[in-house]
């Protein structure tokens, strides 16, 4: 790529996004990563592949997902008009299926019969287990022990779908360690196994490939906003852990200079405490899981464990394209605490009858704040990346909604 002639920020090919990205990986995995990258390059240009994926999305995922205006919620956002891109209505309940179906098709294309994946909240694991069932692939999901406990319902869902779920007990026992363990397993089984990576991070080609598969969110939403309002939104807001739903909705708007892009990072107890997951706000560049990006780390480069009530955002790194967009100022990254996210979750539930995932509730918390800045003329598009069924037990405890003696998960 020649920066001087490429004016568009859309669909940057990687492996580098500015100073970020790359492929810092053990040699044992390079052959498989190269094979995947080559297969993806071919598939990307193959109309048959694209048509097959589009048809799956139409007849299985339920795309296009709708856009819902939420006026009663918006009363709490300074009166700005707020629209939700309803990825929560996808089959399996989140945006993760968009990427998984693409990578499952690729798995079949390269002739592998087994897939593995990491999962935090369990949404990517459920989506992968679903695609494995659909395509007749063997499936093993790696999930941190802490997450298997706080997202027990999703563990049961994955097993019901026929996947093996491995509870990872090393390190912080969350998403970061699930990825470590999946890499270790992949090294031993790479001849038969494809790694379906869940977020727009990791080594090339994952950040670009996952972004491309998720870009359908923004492509649809941009058209829907134009059709509905005759104009683009003033701001697009999404939560950022690794950042796949955010880059998915951002991509279509990257060249629309008047559309502000906001990624909301999980601030846990607050970015000034030692319990948060705000990699861009409080991290610095480093190499983790195959790519250079912002990272929560100590002076020695040891990864610092992140904290968030949301398992899906509880990750100390972030996708390299977000690091790039932050550095060039095209997107802004703002924090939302556990408390702010849970308040937003309850508010959307009570005002609109939509229970969001705790991850997505971080984006809603960001939208409430931005709406108050934009005022009544503002239009905000929020990526509602997932639904909250999996989080009902957590919310029940947080808000003390459970009767004494009731069985809790």
């Amino acid at each position, binding site marked *: 790529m020649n920066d001087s002639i490429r004016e568009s920020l859309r669909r940057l090919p990687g492996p580098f996004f500015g100073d970020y990205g790359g492929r810092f990986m053990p040699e*044992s995995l390079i052959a498989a990563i190269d094979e995947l990258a080559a297969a993806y390059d071919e598939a990307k240009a193959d109309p048959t592949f694209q048509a097959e994926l589009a048809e799956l999305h139409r007849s299985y995922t339920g795309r296009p997902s709708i856009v819902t205006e939420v006026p009663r919620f918006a009363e709490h956002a300074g009166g700005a008009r707020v629209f939700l891109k309803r990825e929560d209505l996808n089959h399996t309940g989140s945006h993760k299926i968009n990427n998984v179906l693409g990578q499952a098709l690729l798995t079949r294309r390269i002739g592998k019969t087994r897939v593995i994946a990491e999962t935090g909240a369990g949404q990517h694991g459920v989506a992968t287990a679903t695609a494995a069932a659909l395509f007749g692939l063997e499936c093993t999901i790696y999930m941190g022990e802490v997450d298997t406990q706080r997202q027990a319902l999703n563990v049961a869902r994955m097993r019901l779908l026929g996947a093996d779920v491995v509870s990872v007990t090393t390190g912080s026992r969350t998403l970061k360690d699930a990825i470590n363990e999946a890499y270790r397993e992949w090294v031993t089984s790479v001849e038969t196994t494809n790694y379906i990576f869940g977020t727009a991070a990791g080594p090339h080609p994952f950040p670009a490939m996952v972004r491309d598969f998720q870009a359908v969110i923004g492509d649809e939403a941009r058209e829907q906003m134009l059709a509905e309002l005759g104009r683009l939104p003033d701001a697009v807001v999404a939560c950022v852990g690794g950042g796949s739903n955010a880059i998915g909705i951002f991509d279509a708007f990257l060249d629309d200079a008047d559309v502000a892009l906001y990624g909301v990072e999980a601030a846990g107890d607050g970015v000034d405490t030692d319990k948060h997951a705000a990699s861009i706000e409080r991290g610095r560049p480093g190499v983790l899981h195959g790519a250079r990006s912002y990272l929560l*780390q100590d002076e*020695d480069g*040891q990864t610092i464990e992140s904290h968030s009530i949301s398992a899906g955002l509880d990750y100390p790194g972030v996708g390299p394209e977000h690091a790039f967009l932050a550095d060039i100022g095209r997107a802004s990254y703002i924090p939302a605490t556990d408390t702010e996210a849970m308040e937003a979750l309850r508010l959307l539930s009570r005002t609109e009858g939509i229970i969001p995932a705790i991850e997505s509730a971080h984006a809603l918390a960001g939208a409430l704040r931005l709406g108050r800045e934009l005022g009544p003329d503002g239009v905000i598009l929020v990526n509602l990346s997932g639904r909250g069924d999996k989080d009902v037990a957590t919310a029940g405890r947080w808000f003390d909604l459970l009767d004494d003696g009731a069985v809790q998960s």
Partner: protein
Amino acid sequence: MSSVAQAITGSGALVGYLPVGFPDLQTSIDAAVALVENGVDALELGLPYSDPVMDGIAIQKATQQALAAGFRVRDVFTAVEAVRSRVDAPVLVMTYWNPVVQYGVGRFADALRDAGGAGLITPDITPDSADEWIAESDRTGLDRVFLAAPSSTDARLAATVAASRGFVYAVSTMGITGARADVDAKARELIARLRAAGATGPETIAACVGIGISTPEQVTEVLGYADGAIVGSALVSALAEEGVAGVARLASALSHGK
């Protein structure tokens, strides 16, 4: 010829791995010295890291314990210097990449050279992602050991041989560190492919086999076709279970496999 290459000349070398700071800094130094006193020809000192994706459970446990006990990156230079002052064997540092990046690649290279270190083994970067390290190792004269895997293409093996100095680390099997009953037939085939790619021995560049080796018999078998045999997890387990005396006994037994 680098000190590592010199140590590997002859009938085949035994290379021993132990992490710095396990179970504590001084014991890790004493244990490394004991390896050399009991027949190990070259040392790999591991730099404990929070996310060791190429390590099995034995090394993970030891390095996480070292981190929990307060290991700092600078302890590696202390350990290298202390070991070098007590025994005459080359000392390589095995490290994941981010700690080097955060220390500063050039600053790390200077500190390692000043401590008397021979170079780095870098399990999670490949030559095509290592421009800065290649430049800094050239500047400081340090060795750079890259890994080759059974899955590597011929073109990648050639590039790895061309970029490496000291030796090429041939990963015996598709897997992570840890003792195995059989060191894969894949190791023999990989060494043959590395030979064809130019790693013909210490006079050009040596090819050593690591991962899975834990017994004197395996050392003998590997040295039948490779320039060196690398033992890690078995030594770490011996240190964990039986202390410095245990690791000395195992090193002595392994060196009889040479």
